[in-house]
């Protein structure tokens, strides 16, 4: 059964003219890794807000259609309850630090405190997450004095410590320097093996190609394409839509156009390497 299911969903923010989501139909299954791509203003973040229940509970506006999480309509969910099911990490590393804790260790524990996790278990879980995310050396630091990249890792740690079944991650690297980006990628890679449902919005298409099981391409508030990663990223229409696809896929398509096709269109460098090698 689908964990999250959207049927003909349209949404308009208050005091705006255009719909941010138009007749969106899609579903997300448990345990899969989803990538959402598309141009800015295409509705990616709005979709995340909906899945997180921020629409319609935090953002007013007009919501029509059916959006169900675990079979229950989003309008009937309590946002507090939803926050213990769906974790959320977004762009800005600065607004994701609570500002009320004086060490990273306490900052990472904040969600667990709110959920009422017993103290001894809390300490163990925080230690484990800090180790896993490689921020063990930062636990005594004041989170309010960290760099953007470090803050983003602390933000991930706070959310991952809560151990939600689902994680919505909205462009986690868009405000980071290359080193910070690299570290966040490592976190995302480790999530790949965690059996969680992951919904990742990301511009860096190579990352999407590498990790995602399925992809949604958002355009003007609608889902333009969706399906298994390989299938979507090698679509010629997508290339013609000027949506970003991996460089190696462009290469594969160009080879086809030149009449010298590879046996398949690659989406990662490794695949391309294999395909070219097999041709000899």
């Amino acid at each position, binding site marked *: 059964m689908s964990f999250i299911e959207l049927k003909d969903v349209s949404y308009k923010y208050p005091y705006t003219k255009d719909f941010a989501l138009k007749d969106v139909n899609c579903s997300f299954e448990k345990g899969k890794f989803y990538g959402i791509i598309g141009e800015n203003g295409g509705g990616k973040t709005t979709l995340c807000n909906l899945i997180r229940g921020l629409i319609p509970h935090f953002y007013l506006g007009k919501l029509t259609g059916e959006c169900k999480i675990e079979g229950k309509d989003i309008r009937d969910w309590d946002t507090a309850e939803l926050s213990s099911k769906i974790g959320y990490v977004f762009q800005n590393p600065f607004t994701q630090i609570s500002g009320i804790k004086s060490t990273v260790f306490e900052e990472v524990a904040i969600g667990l405190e709110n959920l009422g996790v017993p103290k001894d278990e809390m*300490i163990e879980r925080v230690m484990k997450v800090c*180790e896993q995310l490689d921020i063990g050396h930062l636990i*005594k630091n004041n989170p309010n004095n960290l760099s953007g990249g470090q803050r983003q890792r602390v933000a991930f740690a706070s959310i991952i410590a809560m151990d939600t079944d689902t994680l919505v991650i909205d462009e986690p690297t868009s405000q980071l320097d290359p080193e910070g980006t690299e570290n966040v990628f490592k976190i995302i890679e480790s999530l790949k093996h965690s059996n969680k449902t992951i919904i990742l919005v990301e511009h860096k298409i190579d990352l999407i190609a590498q990790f995602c099981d399925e992809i949604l391409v958002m355009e003007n508030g609608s889902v333009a394409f969706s399906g298994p990663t390989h299938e979507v990223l090698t679509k010629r229409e997508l290339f013609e839509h000027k949506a970003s696809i991996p460089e190696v896929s462009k290469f594969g398509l160009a080879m086809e156009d030149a009449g010298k096709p590879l046996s398949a269109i690659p989406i990662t460098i490794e695949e391309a390497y294999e395909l070219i090698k097999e041709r000899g």
Partner: protein
Amino acid sequence: MDKEFAYSFKDYVKYGNGFKDLNPISKLTISLCLGIASCVIHRWQFGIFLFFLGIILALYTRVFDRFIRSLLVIAIPLLLLTSIMRQLQYGHVEGNTPIFKIFGWQWYKEPFIASMDIAWYIIGFSSVLLIYFLNTEMKDLMLALENRGVTHVASYIMLSSMQSIIDMRKSANTILESQKARGIETDGNVIVRMKAFFPTLGPILLSAMSGTEEKAIAMDARAFSHDGGHTYLRVLRPIPVWEYVIDALAVLVLIGSIVYAIMSSMHAL
């Protein structure tokens, strides 16, 4: 990873100083009772007593420097201005007792005592509260309040206010620096400086206020509005009996001061 640090959270919060380690609420009770008693008694003698009590506690808790610096800023203008004001207004009233002359200006006893009563009761009040604030982390006070049933939203608001001030000061300095670098005058006459005020405050304010939306979302993701019981990583020491005794004594001082004030005003009638 510093495991020792991580496991230190298993213990109660402690600072290793008898006064500092009092429960923030008992400490507040003591300070407020003494401070209010100072207002009620309204006598220089009690004010000076609290001032010396403050000095002793400041030395004991190693905050003397900060204590005396903050207190002098309050005390010196208060003592000077209040006594001068009183002499100017009531100095030459008939029946007053001359006490001393300053550069030929005759001072009188009655208005002088009246001004000392006022200045010292405020100094006494300030002394005990300064000692309180210098020896209490706001996060501990808020934690103690939460333990007594105050909502964690109150803690968030208080602690976040303090952090926001720090953050906003940083951005104000950055913006002022960059304005100087861009050649916007921040020195010069009042009008010039006033003009520099708006472009400095505006952006800081708007970005901080707009950032609240994301902050709300981030805190929501951290189960901020979850109300099914809350646990705490930091835990305060259970309050020992003798601490309640000190609290009770402080309350007694306050009650005593009220009785004293009523008695003396009845006497005056």
